[in-house]
């Protein structure tokens, strides 16, 4: 009856078009819209009408993120509901392929069978992007079946354990991110061998692994991020690497093969003063391998291992760096390294000095090497830095703490007309 009244007002044709044109759009379009929704709103659309119900149950992207929802006092019950809900959603999903699957919740041993079920489910549906982020104390042991996925393109794992020597075969994987993952040296080696197309590798705070060897099997690797807070020997041979970021709290052995196409490199190493001098020369050699990077960021410890430059000729292996960020306290043990870097970077255009407190990596007896007055050092320099003459355009100083030490070093720049 209401319809009739409207008909008179607007005319029959117009009423029909007015009626929910949105729901008649093709599935692919509406799925595109759904991809912008969080899981909660996505499910909400499932109760609008049968059409939207079908859309939401055939949606190929599933994100289950526990923290998206408000916590209630009875967390245990809440977690049970969460897990049951995932099971049901998977059961109802009618799409033959799942593109993306995210599972992020505080894992404990009770949930192991549910997570296993999820993985089995998505594996059957030709999963392309999988993200398993487990918060909380428990670690999930990965089933060996996952390691043989022929469809996975991107895999992200947090708080997971790799079993003993399951041979991985990821024939399509291009991006791998491991955070707080437990795996042995051998398993890591096998894993990297099993990913021939890998372009992107992130390794953060891994456990049980003392040697990170990225060898000849990772020919396609373009981006590498490593973040560790314990001793790890790093061995990288990746000729096509473009982006490298390394954060190591306790620097150990390190060896890099020359990376000719490197564009961005960030090396934040710290060294304990007790480390033997071989470590220092190993770090120095590693830095030389980064010399092709146009953008370079170095920590205080990196500066300290660089030798005092001769100021006579440009070293044959000079840096091609155009932008340089150095984190330094401008202390006397860092100054020779800074001078070295500036001397051997003739193409430098931008210099950013990030001032921060630093500590010396040498034990006291070695300090004899740096027994000089840094003010006199800078003021006595008569050599002309090639970068100052040629390209250097901007110098930015951040984190300034009002120390007088900077003045003398800036005088060198001033005297060169910057």
């Amino acid at each position, binding site marked *: 009856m209401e319809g009739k009244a409207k008909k008179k007002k607007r005319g029959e044709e117009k009423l029909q078009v007015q009626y929910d044109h949105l729901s008649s759009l093709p599935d692919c379009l509406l799925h595109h819209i759904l991809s912008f*929704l969080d899981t909660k709103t996505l499910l909400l659309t499932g109760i*609008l009408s049968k059409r939207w119900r079908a859309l939401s149950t055939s949606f190929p992207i599933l994100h289950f993120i526990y923290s998206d929802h408000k916590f209630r006092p009875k967390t245990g019950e809440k977690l049970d509901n969460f897990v049951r809900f995932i099971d049901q959603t998977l059961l109802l999903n009618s799409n033959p392929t799942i593109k993306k699957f995210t599972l992020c919740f505080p894992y404990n041993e009770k949930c192991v069978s549910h997570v296993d079920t999820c993985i089995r489910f998505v594996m059957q549906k030709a999963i392309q992007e999988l993200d398993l982020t487990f918060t909380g104390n428990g670690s999930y042991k990965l089933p060996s079946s996952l390691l043989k996925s022929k469809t996975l393109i991107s895999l992200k794992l947090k708080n997971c354990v790799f079993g003993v020597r399951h041979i991985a075969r990821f024939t399509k994987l291009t991006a791998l991110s491991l955070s707080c993952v437990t795996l042995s040296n051998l398993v890591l080696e096998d894993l990297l061998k099993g990913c021939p197309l890998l372009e992107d590798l992130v390794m953060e705070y891994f456990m049980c692994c003392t040697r990170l060897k990225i060898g000849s099997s990772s020919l396609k690797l373009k981006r590498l991020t490593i973040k560790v807070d314990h001793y790890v020997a790093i061995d990288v041979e990746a000729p096509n690497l473009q982006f490298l970021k390394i954060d190591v709290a306790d620097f150990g052995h390190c060896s890099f093969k020359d990376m000719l196409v490197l564009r961005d490199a960030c090396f934040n190493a710290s060294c304990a003063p007790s480390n033997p001098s071989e470590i220092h020369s190993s770090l120095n050699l590693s830095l030389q391998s980064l010399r092709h990077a146009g953008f370079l960021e170095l920590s205080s410890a990196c500066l300290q291992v660089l030798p005092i430059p001769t100021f006579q000729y440009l070293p044959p292996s000079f840096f091609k760096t155009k932008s340089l960020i150095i984190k330094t306290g401008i202390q006397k043990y860092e100054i020779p390294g800074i001078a070295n870097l500036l001397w051997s970077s003739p193409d430098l255009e931008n210099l950013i000095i990030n001032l921060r407190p630093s500590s010396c990596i040498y034990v006291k007896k070695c300090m004899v090497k740096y027994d000089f007055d840094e003010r006199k050092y800078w003021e006595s320099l008569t050599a002309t830095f090639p970068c100052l003459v040629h390209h250097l355009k901007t110098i930015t100083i951040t984190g300034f703490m009002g120390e007088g030490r900077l003045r003398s070093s800036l005088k060198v720049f001033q005297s060169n007309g910057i």
Partner: protein
Amino acid sequence: MASTSNSTSSKIITLRSSDGEVFEVEESVALESNLIRRMMEDDCANNIIPLPNVTAPIFYLVIEHCKKHAEMKDNKEKKKELRSQGEELLKSDPHTYSNLMEAVNYLDIKSLMDLTAQWLADFLKGKSPRLIRELLKIKNDFTPEEEAEILERNRWAFD
């Protein structure tokens, strides 16, 4: 062929909507559409390009938003403004929204696909199913029992 690819951005392209109206659009704006780009690559550029699936009022909207989108690239405030316009359009005229979405999809304009999808996503967020049905004129074809069952199944998410 060579004339199309080497020309400057000030070149004007002529397009005709389904209801016969003729539009003159700058090449840089028109090339946002992958459909038009493909047609030009196939050397249809010297004639008027017909768009049989887009009506004039909708095409006006598309061009307007293409221009705005090009302007806002580095402007955060404009971006916000453009994002907030969806709410108004969806509330006042969901039918035009659907037509716009359809046209953008047909013309294959990636930036506007994402913008219009974001509009609906923002619009749906935080609204009750009843309100959404009412505003978008979606007919509820569930029986009360079916609806209760779905609600019960998804209770975890709706708490």
